Structure formats: structure tokens, C-alpha cells
């Protein structure tokens, strides 16, 4: 018989670390300080706002959907069903967190039905997700929000974009049917999600971001200890009521199976290690999409920087992405002050590239001359490809060496995601 616990994490307040002094030696063991440890363990996953994918103007000065007359020429405007990838990401979800999308847009532009027949100004933002549970089973969902349409002639954008910015939110991007606890628990097992943001029809997206948002978490009594990233000590929510602790070390019910592993030293240790193994930053989630042309990818033959600059090798002065906050995931065992002498940090990561190739190619994610991971892109259509490895990162965001540069060879690339993977266990393992 399955025994479940669940907690609501939406609207969770701030993480408060428990007091250490009451737990020092030569003090009486009391319920309060111990309970504070359990409760604090339940706030940790609720801290995540990890960004999974972004898209939008991204430096472009012009839109894919022009201000011009759609009847003047065929093919100048998108069709009402045309979908453009404007950003993608691929991560393992923080257990208890699902996704939310914020978008800021200006009114959508004109479309063309066929030839030069106008389809009317219209636009949508769509977020496609492919959710993979721990058995490897996948579920696909699409989440859409209609965007305001331009009232200007030919669906033109307003004269000053700042006066016509609209905000739109897709509040809950989740797999279907999270109501039953067993289904919620299925998607709280450090599952994987591939996300793609689409601008549909004449959408003019200034900025869209899909990020993790705490919602609800559930676990089952016999779930493997290493999968618990929350203690699930209290009922309903981390701040809710809880059963009284009987003894400092003892779990609520030592029975196996179908016992109650919560409320004791062993479970506290499991959760601690689960959190440090499985929780960590998304170092970057980058896309090659360009609004000005509507291009979704960048194509490379010889080795070159993905951003289109002329660099072919790592150089600290050249453009890239930041990886200083990757240092927050420093591990005691592998890059403590003793191991790396507090000069640099290096963390295990998973790199994913959404790319295609007509001859085998590769994407390189590099943070120093001797710190890089190559993702092999086999011959085939565009898809996510993956590699494991270690990257040198900064210790804090202001560390002088904290730069990710992206290179590619013989491939067409849409997106690259890099995230921490200390205790990575792929689905269907």
C-alpha cells in the first residue's frame, strides 16, 4: 500500500536557516530546535526561480513582423499558425517546482493567410513542454496565451513601444493531472523537462522567460532516500502542523515498507544529501533565435563562436555568459577550500544542445582554456543532445574568472543549456 505525503509550496515565504547554537554539545535535546531543522529542509526547494528558457528582442532593433502592408507582397508576414522558436531549455526539475512564464509584449502585427491575403493582426505565445518521468515515459503539453493585437494600420507597432507594453503570465505550466497525490509524486522525482517558447503569428515579444516556480511536492514512504529533496515534515505546508517527535533519533514509523521515514536523523541526512546532490543552478540557457530575421538557429561549418563573432578559441575579453554563481554549488568533497585552495571552483554539470548536423559535429561549452565539454551532434534532425562533465566556474558572481563561451563545429544550433548535476541519475536508470 502506498503511503504519501504532500505539501503546498506556492506562496512559500523565505527560507530561514535553523539556529545552530541550541544544537551544540552539552545542551539538552529539545523538540523545538530539531523541528526547526526539519521545517527548514522543507523551505529549500521553494527557493528556486531557476530560469529554463528565454526569448524576445534580445538586442534586435526590429521585429520579424513588419509594419508594412500585407497585401503588397506575398511572404512578408507570418501566417496565423506560423510558430517561431524564440527560446528553448532543457533541465531536470527541482522536485516540487513546476514552471511559470512571464512575457512582456507589444501589440501583435499583421498576418497573411495565403499569398497577399491579410489574416488580421494577431499573435500568441506558446510554451511546449515534453515531460519525462523517471521511467522514461513522456508527456507533451502546450500552454498558450493570447497576445493583444495592434490597432494601427497594417498592424504596425506603436510609435513608442514603452507606451504599449503588455504583461502576460502563464501561471502554472505543469504536466496534466497533478491533483491525485500519486500523480503529483510521479512528477516530483527530479524529472526532466524540455521547454520551447514559440512566438505564433504576428507576436511581438519583447521578453519571455520560463522559470521554476514552487507549487506542490509529494513523496511516497518507500521512495529511495536519495530522491528526497524535502523532508515533508509538516502537513499541508512547510509551516503546517506536525506530529510530535517521540525521540530525537527515531523516525515516525520504522516499519519497512509503508512506514514513515520522516522525523529522524536518518531522514534528515538523506534529505541533506539529496539537496546537495540534486539541487544547483542553471548556469545558462541560451538561444540562437533572432527576432529581426526570425532565424531560429545558427549554422557553423568550421569551428566558431556560436554568437557569430570571429573567435575560435576561448578568450576572457570576448563575449560570453556568466558562470560565477555556479560557485554556489561548490561541493565539500570536490572543490572545497582544501581541494581547490579557494582560487577557483569546478562543478559537475550536464550540457544539452538543441542542434542538428548533416555531418557529425559538436558544440563546445568552455569556461577556461582547459575546462570544456563537447557535446557530439550526430547526423540527424534538430534534437536535444547531451554530455556530462565538469566545468570550472567562479566562486561568487564577482569572481574574475567566470565566463562561459560557446563554440560549434559542423552543426546547426538553436539552444544550449548547462545545469548543475551533482547526483545526476537519468530517467529510466
Amino acid at each position, binding site marked *: 500500500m502506498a503511503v504519501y505525503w504532500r505539501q503546498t509550496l506556492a506562496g512559500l515565504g523565505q*527560507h530561514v*536557516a535553523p539556529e*545552530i547554537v541550541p*544544537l551544540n554539545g552539552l545542551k539538552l535535546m529539545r523538540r523545538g530546535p530539531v523541528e526547526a*531543522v526539519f521545517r*527548514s*529542509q522543507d523551505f529549500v526547494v521553494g*527557493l528556486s*526561480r531557476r*530560469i529554463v528558457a*528565454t526569448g524576445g528582442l534580445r*538586442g534586435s532593433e526590429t521585429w520579424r513582423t513588419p509594419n508594412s502592408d500585407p497585401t503588397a507582397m506575398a511572404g512578408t508576414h507570418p501566417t496565423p499558425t506560423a510558430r517561431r522558436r524564440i527560446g528553448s531549455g532543457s533541465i531536470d526539475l*527541482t522536485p516540487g517546482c513546476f514552471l511559470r512564464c*512571464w512575457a512582456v509584449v507589444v501589440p501583435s502585427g499583421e498576418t497573411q493567410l495565403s499569398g497577399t491575403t491579410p489574416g488580421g493582426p494577431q499573435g500568441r505565445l506558446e510554451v511546449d513542454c515534453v515531460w519525462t518521468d523517471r521511467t522514461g515515459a513522456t508527456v507533451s503539453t502546450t500552454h498558450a496565451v493570447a497576445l493583444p493585437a495592434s490597432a494601427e494600420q497594417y498592424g504596425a507597432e506603436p*510609435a*513608442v*513601444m*514603452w*507606451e504599449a507594453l*503588455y*504583461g502576460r503570465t502563464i501561471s502554472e505550466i505543469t504536466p496534466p493531472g497533478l491533483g491525485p497525490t500519486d500523480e503529483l509524486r510521479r512528477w516530483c522525482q527530479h524529472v526532466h523537462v524540455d521547454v520551447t517558447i514559440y512566438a505564433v503569428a504576428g507576436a511581438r515579444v519583447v521578453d519571455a*522567460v520560463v522559470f*521554476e516556480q514552487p507549487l506542490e511536492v509529494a513523496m511516497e514512504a518507500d521512495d529511495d532516500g536519495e530522491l528526497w529533496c524535502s523532508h515533508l515534515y509538516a502537513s499541508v505546508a512547510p509551516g503546517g502542523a506536525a506530529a510530535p517527535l517521540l525521540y530525537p*533519533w527515531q523516525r515516525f514509523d520504522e516499519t519497512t515498507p509503508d512506514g514513515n521515514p520522516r522525523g529522524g*536523523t*536518518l531522514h534528515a*541526512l538523506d534529505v*541533506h*544529501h539529496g539537496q*546537495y546532490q540534486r539541487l544547483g*543552478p*542553471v548556469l*545558462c540557457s541560451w538561444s540562437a533565435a*533572432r527576432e529581426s530575421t526570425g532565424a531560429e538557429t545558427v549554422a557553423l561549418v568550421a569551428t566558431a563562436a556560436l*554568437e557569430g563573432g570571429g573567435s575560435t578559441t576561448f578568450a576572457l575579453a570576448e*563575449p*560570453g555568459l*556568466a*558562470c*560565477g554563481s555556479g560557485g*554556489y554549488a561548490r561541493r*565539500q*568533497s*570536490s572543490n572545497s*577550500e582544501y*581541494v*581547490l*585552495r579557494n582560487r*577557483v*571552483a569546478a562543478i559537475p554539470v550536464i550540457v544539452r544542445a538543441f542542434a542538428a548536423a548533416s555531418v557529425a559535429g559538436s558544440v563546445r561549452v568552455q569556461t577556461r582554456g582547459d*575546462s570544456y565539454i563537447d557535446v557530439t551532434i550526430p547526423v540527424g534532425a534538430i534534437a536535444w543532445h547531451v554530455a*556530462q562533465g*565538469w*566545468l*570550472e566556474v567562479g566562486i*561568487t*558572481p*564577482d*569572481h574574475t574568472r567566470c565566463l562561459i563561451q560557446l563554440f560549434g563545429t559542423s552543426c546547426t544550433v538553436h539552444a544550449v543549456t548547462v*545545469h548543475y548535476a551533482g547526483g545526476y541519475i537519468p530517467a529510466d536508470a
Partner: protein
Amino acid sequence: MAGQGDVANAKDDTRYYGVDSGAGLTDLAVDLSHQADDLDVGTGCVYEASGSRWDFTTLPWAIDLLVNANDTDTGYLYSRETGGNGLRLTLATGGVVEARVDTVLVASVTIPNIDAGGDDVAITWSIEANVFTTGAGNACRSELRVFNVDDGTFAQTVATHALPTAAAASAIWGARTTAGASAFSGDMLELRWSVGRFHPAAESREDFVGLTAASVLAYENRREVPVPTRDSAIGAHNQFAGPVYQAVAAGLGQLDLRQAGAVVAELYLDAPTQDESPPTVRALDDPDGDGFAFLGQYLVHRPVPRSCNRLRVRVQIQAWRVDASPPDNIRIRCYSMARTPLGLAGNAGPLPAWTRFYEEVSVISADGSGTTGGAWYAFDPLRIARDGTEDGTWLGLAFLVEDDGGGGTADQRWRVRAWTVEPGIIDSAGELPLGGLA
């Protein structure tokens, strides 16, 4: 006898560490690790006839060597093989380092720029479990690396392969047999065997090539607190529960930033060239009246973890003039705002206050307009103006060009090639408690 902590490169996972201090093999046989279990000296090699420390069937582990070799040196660097089982690391002519598992060549890498005169070379072979394994044939992931210490060049090969099969033979450094068969013809300077931890390239470089200069860091850092695992039995009945909870509590204090990653990670393709006259549809004079222009292509709305109180902002700017005059001063502000300067359209009710903070950098540079060039500019820590949800902030870049050295500002150009924002905590007063910061 030196031990762990007495010698910098003898670490927690080191099971053997030998250093030639002038006496060659005699020195190398002295184990400077905490195991402090010396090897024997053979002909052209050091070795141990048996010993559990050489177990390579449990991952991860690492072999590190610092040698002096030239382009004709050859020989065995490390071996523990019996009847086709085990490990072998060799050097072939031309500076080709080869790693074999159960006699199968799994990885080879050529030492860059090795020459006849000889170079100090760090050779490192690290193995961990391949998390994407599809069967026994690719259960392991190896990184075989070489650093030419003399000129700073580096090469690496990554391979997947089977787990090596246990071998009961002697572990030998520097030759195939203890009698000196296939001895390494160069000089071994340092030898290290480590078990239980994957050594990334950064660690090998810091240990055997040179230390990276330390950074002065204003942001709070975080690290994992060492806590025993369940397997240690410290949490079992009849043990002390207090230390467990105390350690876990300390660990929780370090977890507030654990998932804080990039807020803005923009690496612009085809970055447009800009000047002092941006498209009017995109520009907005800043309401503060300082003459800056917000540009709409650099406006984002992003979540920021609630525990963070500052943002680290950097931009990579390439600047040049189209005439021969001295470069102008491009002032760039990064704003964190509670809302956009004019608010959002279609929202009923009064606008909330336009709470905002900004930091500024100044760019006076002649980088040219080529496909490379420019530099990174870091803003001082930016305070966070949170939006109504408390989860997010609006971030934007604003620009102002000032004449600097004559020639007017009309001919100044620049590109924003990258923009990054990362969240963190500044606690200059040292007053904020760990974890859970406002």
C-alpha cells in the same frame, strides 16, 4: 613522516603521492599521502606488490603524473595488469600518451608542443561513472589530459569504456615490470594516485601547473558543509543525534543560494551597431532627466531568488569611431526597476511607484569594428527593486554618449555583444544571518 595536510598535493583522497626531491626513485618511493605506506624501488620504477589502495574497479579515481619528457621518450608510466586485465598508461614516441583498460586502447592524447629538448608535462587520467551508460561497454567516462607546463598548452581526450577488470599484479610506476622492462625513458617528478573523487581539469592544473591568482570577492560565497551520510551509521540508534542535526542545520545555512543562477544570460547574435540616435520607437528618455535613453531591446522581466539582495551585472561592449577622432565616453546604466518606466498598458488602477536602482559604467575605448574585440565592463553591485510579486525585477540598459576629446558624438559606434546578470548577496556589514535574507 609527512602526511595529509603537510604536503599540498596530498589530499583527502590521495592514496599515494611521491615527489622527486633530488634523489629520484628513492624519493618517489616515499609515500607522502596520509596512507604513509612507502613503495619499493625497482629497476627504473617504484612499485607495490599488492595493496587495496590500487583498487580501480570502484569509481571514481585519478592518476596524476608530472614528468619531464621529450618527443622521443617512451615507456610505461603506470601499470597494474594481469592476464589481459587491468590498467596501463604509457608514452609513445612523439609525445603520445595512451590509456588502456584491459589492454584495449581507450584514449590517447598528444602532448602539445613537445620538443627534443624536453618539457615538464602533467599527465592526468580521471575516471568517473558514465551517467548515460547504455551497458557495460561504456560504464565509465575517462578524461585523459596533458598540460605542457613549460608553455601552458593543454590537450584532452574524453572517452567512454568498460570498467577495468581487477588485477592482482604489482602496481608499477615507470616501467612494465619491476625489473625495468619498457621503462619510461624520461624523468618522473611527481606521482599521485587518488581514489574516491573525480579530479576535474581545474584541480590538475592548480596542483601541477600553477595556482590561479586569488580574487577579491565582495559577494557572499557558499559551500557544502561536510555531513556524514546515512551509511556512516552516525544517525542510527545508540549514536548521538545532536551532531547530526547540528551539521544538517549548518548545511541548511549554506543552501539559500544553491539554485541561484544567471538571471540574464544574453549572448547576442548579429549584435546591431548602435549610435547616439537609436530608433525612436525603441528609445525612451529616462524620466530622471539625466539624458540617458532606455533601449527597448534591452528590457527584460526576470525572477530573482528572494534570498538575494544584489545583482552582479556585466556587459561586453565593442566601441569604435567611424572617423579618426578620439573615442567618446559611452555611459551605460543598468536599472533594476519595480516596473517599466511608463508602466504596463491595459492595467487598471494607479501605477505603483517607479522604484528603481541603477549602476553605471563608462566605456571609452577604440576597439575597432571587427568581428572580435571589445571588453567586459562590470557594474558595482546593483540593488534589487522588486516588482509587485516580490519574485521579479525589471532590468534595462540605458545609454548616453558624451564627447570626450573633441570630434562630436555623431561618429561614435558601439555594439552590446553580451549582457549577464547574476544574483547574490552583499553583506558588507556582516549582519545578515546565513540563509533567509531580506
